[in-house]
């Protein structure tokens, strides 16, 4: 038990401190196991299985970053399998209605209860537009905004990571980027 907790602490911390490296490692280490599980328990195509596994790793990352997953009560493999299982069922349901698989946007919006379908669509469009604005802004704005607001890194850490002279420079840059983002967001 102690060993499991220790291990879980390690991978959650790894994802928090160096997401790219940790997620790549997890992807490579857990891929065969999760794909084998899906091959055995679902009738989905190879491409769907890979997409679901990719979504599962992204959801795992999101759950850690937004504080939903702070302490793992199960092993990493079991956690990923449970996400793959839910996603497989969703894809099966969708495919039985109409073709098409899940997207990252659907995963995000799907986590919120929005009663009105129109309202959901409008919100989804706006969220997509903000993501596109960030994509068009590119680094350093996109990077600073994501590191500060999504990964919740401190200004000091961002400064070190991005080679800024001091914390004030990072704060100024972040302020300017946010002003730009908010200005462009108001026009959507």
């Amino acid at each position, binding site marked *: 038990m102690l060993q499991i907790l220790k291990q879980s602490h390690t991978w959650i911390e790894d994802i928090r401190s160096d997401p790219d490296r940790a*997620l*790549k490692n997890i992807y490579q280490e857990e*891929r065969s196991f999760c794909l084998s599980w899906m091959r055995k328990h679902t009738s989905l195509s190879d491409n769907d299985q890979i997409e679901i596994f990719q979504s599962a790793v992204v959801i795992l990352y999101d759950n850690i970053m937004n504080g939903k997953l702070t302490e793992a009560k199960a092993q990493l493999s079991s956690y990923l399998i449970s996400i793959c299982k839910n996603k497989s069922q969703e894809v099966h349901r969708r495919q039985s209605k109409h073709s098409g698989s899940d997207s*990252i946007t659907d995963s995000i919006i799907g986590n919120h209860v929005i009663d009105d379908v129109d309202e959901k669509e409008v919100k989804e469009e706006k969220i997509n537009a903000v993501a596109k*604005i960030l994509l*068009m802004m590119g680094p350093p704005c996109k990077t600073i*905004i994501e590191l500060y607001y*999504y990964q919740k890194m401190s200004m000091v850490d961002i400064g070190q990571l991005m080679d800024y002279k001091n914390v004030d420079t990072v704060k100024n840059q972040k302020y300017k980027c946010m002003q730009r*983002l908010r200005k*462009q967001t108001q026009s959507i």
Partner: protein
Amino acid sequence: MKEDSIDRYLRGQNISAVNDKLSHAELEELSIIREGIRLSALQEKSLMLKNLEKEIASNDHQVSSKQSRGRIMNLNQVMAIAASLTLLIAAGLWFVNNSGSSTPDELYASHYEFPAALGVVRGSEAADDYNKALVTYNSKKFEDAISLLNQSDNPRAKFYMGISYLELDNPSSAIEQLTDYGLNPIGDLPYQYFLGLAYLKSGDIAQGKLTLQKIGESQGYWTEAQDIINQLN
């Protein structure tokens, strides 16, 4: 003070305390921004994993081709040298033909996403012609959009005409318009990325790669451009 509240809200810290300090409209706007930032961060990780998957698939492919070549070589111990040479040449040709991970068409299809025009005023407020043209463009009525954009003096019109031509499967006209826009780029529209894609779609891989290489690390679409370049190498 207000900036602190906004920061705390966007970082998901002590939201109930922040709620009192921000108006309903501000909270709505910030909620969209927060989810947009989240989506952007997740899309980046998703792209990273897709690229990793391509690497894994490519490595698997190489390992299996090595194994099959190994089996062929064992059989070749009893075959004549000429026959083994023929096999090796065939294996070499097969590898050359199959080592490229994606064709330019596939790269275009997987990386092109319609860039909607932002800041468009809808309905009766859409007073000027350029704005009306963008509303048509966003409605994906590309032929109509081109004729409206063609009448506009706004330099950005050329960018949106370029995209409209891409949507109409006319990469050579898209190249013409996007190149024109690039001569006097007003604003920060990502013309180099779409110009690079237009070249790929037209079959001019070298020019496409060259155009994508011009996108600086500090510009939008840099990650996507690098991804395409890596796959073309």
